[in-house]
């Protein structure tokens, strides 16, 4: 594939993204921490167990219902640390700004970063600012990296998924993607639809304090719930069966999806966590989650099964079962 080029779909978080990382990045950097391919890497430094992660934010539009690029840049990294079983501590923030960008917008973005950092209990302790020529970036890009302390007594890894575990989700999916898309296409949405962008560290910490037995934690961001479940099933070599009727989707979000031809199961979320835990602990996890503002609608959406290894099945609304595959390519609005 000498002439192969990067496609937009390589960044969709779906199958092509995975292939790209597996074929290009992983072989180049291979090491045990990276090879686990979790949202955050677990590392040790001077005897301390740390989680370390980074992400770049290039969302368009910069401001959308329920958040903006700044809030996203903090919450995304905080959540990657939290689902690594760590307490987020410090963030870095790198800004790449297009010449001509309004300072007022930058202030707004930075203020919302600060608010999100305060809520998450993290400090932005280092940063970097670059300004590039007009047209070299689209407004502003933000990169954040974060360090957290691994919570003692927890062992979070996709490899821990075992048959018989319950899969718990903290609320409705698809809100973020639909809010951003509506902003992008100038669609008006009911006021009830806004991005779910939120720092989940507090809720996850409470869950881990009550139930350290939690085995797997993930946040279904790009690629959505379906892709995240597929990653876990593939890594752990287990099957997963989820129940369509149990997966909450706001009717308003479903309505927008129906019009645009999107499947909410593949849409990005920014305030959702998936928890795998042995079923005797499910009730307690759900009780703790429901006591938290970001987990009010927590519920069991499915189970880990012994077979077929690496595959995710969906029990549909009328009782059929079908494969729930990874996203192939980008979801495009349907045409006809």
């Amino acid at each position, binding site marked *: 594939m000498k002439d192969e080029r990067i496609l937009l779909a390589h960044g969709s978080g779906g*199958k*092509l993204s995975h292939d790209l990382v597996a074929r290009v990045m992983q072989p180049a950097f291979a090491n045990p921490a990276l090879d686990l391919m979790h949202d955050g890497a677990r590392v040790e430094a001077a005897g301390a167990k740390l989680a370390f992660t980074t992400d770049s934010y290039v969302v368009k539009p910069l401001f959308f219902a329920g958040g903006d690029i700044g809030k996203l840049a903090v919450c995304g990294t905080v959540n990657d640390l939290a689902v690594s079983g760590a307490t987020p501590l410090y963030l870095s923030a790198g800004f790449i700004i297009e010449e001509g960008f309004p300072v007022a917008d930058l202030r707004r973005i930075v203020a919302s970063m600060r608010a999100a950092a305060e809520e998450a209990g993290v400090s932005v302790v280092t940063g970097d600012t670059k300004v590039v020529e007009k047209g070299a970036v689209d407004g502003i890009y933000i990169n954040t990296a974060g360090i957290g302390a691994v919570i003692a007594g927890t062992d979070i890894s996709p490899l821990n998924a075992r048959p018989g575990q319950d899969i718990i989700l903290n609320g409705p999916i698809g809100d973020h993607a639909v809010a951003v898309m509506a902003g992008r296409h100038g669609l008006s949405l009911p006021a009830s639809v806004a991005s779910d962008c939120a720092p989940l560290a507090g809720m996850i910490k409470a869950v881990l304090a009550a139930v350290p037995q939690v085995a797997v934690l993930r946040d279904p961001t790009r690629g959505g719930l379906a892709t995240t479940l597929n990653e876990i099933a593939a890594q752990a070599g287990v099957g997963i*069966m989820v129940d369509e*009727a149990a997966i909450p989707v706001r009717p308003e979000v479903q309505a927008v999806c129906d019009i645009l031809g999107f499947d909410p199961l593949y849409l990005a979320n920014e305030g959702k966590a998936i928890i795998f835990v042995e079923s005797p602990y499910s009730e307690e996890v759900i009780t703790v989650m429901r006591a938290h503002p970001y987990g009010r609608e927590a519920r069991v959406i499915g189970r880990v099964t012994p*077979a*077929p290894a690496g*595959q995710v*099945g*969906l*029990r*549909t*609304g*009328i*009782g*059929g*079962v*079908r*494969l729930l*595959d990874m996203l*192939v*390519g980008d979801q*495009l*609005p*349907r*045409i*006809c």
Partner: protein
Amino acid sequence: MKSRSREEEHRLAAYFRGEIARLATKPVRLMEVCGTHTVAIFKAGIRQLLPPEVELVSGPGCPVCVTPNGYLDTAVAFSRQADVIITTFGDMLRVPGSSSSLAAEQATGADIRIVYSPLDSLEIAAANPGKKVIFLAVGFETTAPTAAATVLAAEQAGLANFYVLSAHKLVPPALRALLTAGEVQVDGLLLPGHVSAIIGEEPYGFLAREYGVPAVITGFEPLDILGAVYLLVKRIAAGEAALDNEYRRVVPPAGNPAALAVLDKVYGEADAAWRGLGVIPASGLAVKAAYRRFDALAALPVTVEETKEHPGCRCGEVLRGVARPADCPLFGTACTPEKPVGSCMVSVEGTCAAWYKYGAGRWQV
């Protein structure tokens, strides 16, 4: 439409399932004609709800899939002309022709634009008076009236640089061709709701009358489809051939006369070539003489390469319902949605794409 509660839906689904299992005492093969049905069936996992006696096969109901190579070759040839802008629905971009595709031409500089409605083409034509704008008019009775209305709007706007390259196709003649050929044994047909909303019930009357095949016009909700399967199995068990309209809430028996009138003004029936089915008499729509100046083929010169088929691809058999995607040696290996070889894998409504995406037969509980 979704006024039923979840519990009611479950109850109804369980009832249909039970009845289907009770009535299907011998093997029956039902064909869903429409690509949207195919996707809905896979998405809802309906195949797994049916007893082994009831087999669902997909038919030639994906408009992108049945568009033959020759049409794509013509579109490609037009796209290579320096003063041409091609407008098309996105699905057509990646469909391979004999030696190229619109996507490949676009990558090497052809001006090809995706539109969401044929009417968008008129704005493009108005904004580019020095260019010829050719809309790729692909689709069944559902989309053809809009294309016809676009021609009328172009006439009214006095646009001299707008054309259509028509590959519009009609569903009933294709069904007749399939049943006449008898290559695939069909015991019942699920008929497309959207097409029927335009043409109504009567154009399907011959299915029961002449071929003794029961058929149901049905919608796209999982319960619509399961209900239609139940109706068919019931008719078959009773030895009756009839046409049922399960989708009355959308499909009036007489269809949509206003849409049909627009269609009839601009288009007339013509023989048409289908991928996999060959040329079927009176199964396509050609621009009528009065509007010939909008017909790209009649109005503009073009030299088209010789048509070649793709070695190995079995789309033709898949579209006739005589092969399943899994019967194609390329399925899932050389041919995937990321690197499709044939049209059935390119189109989101294609049978091969649905099999691949929803893992037909791949999930064992």
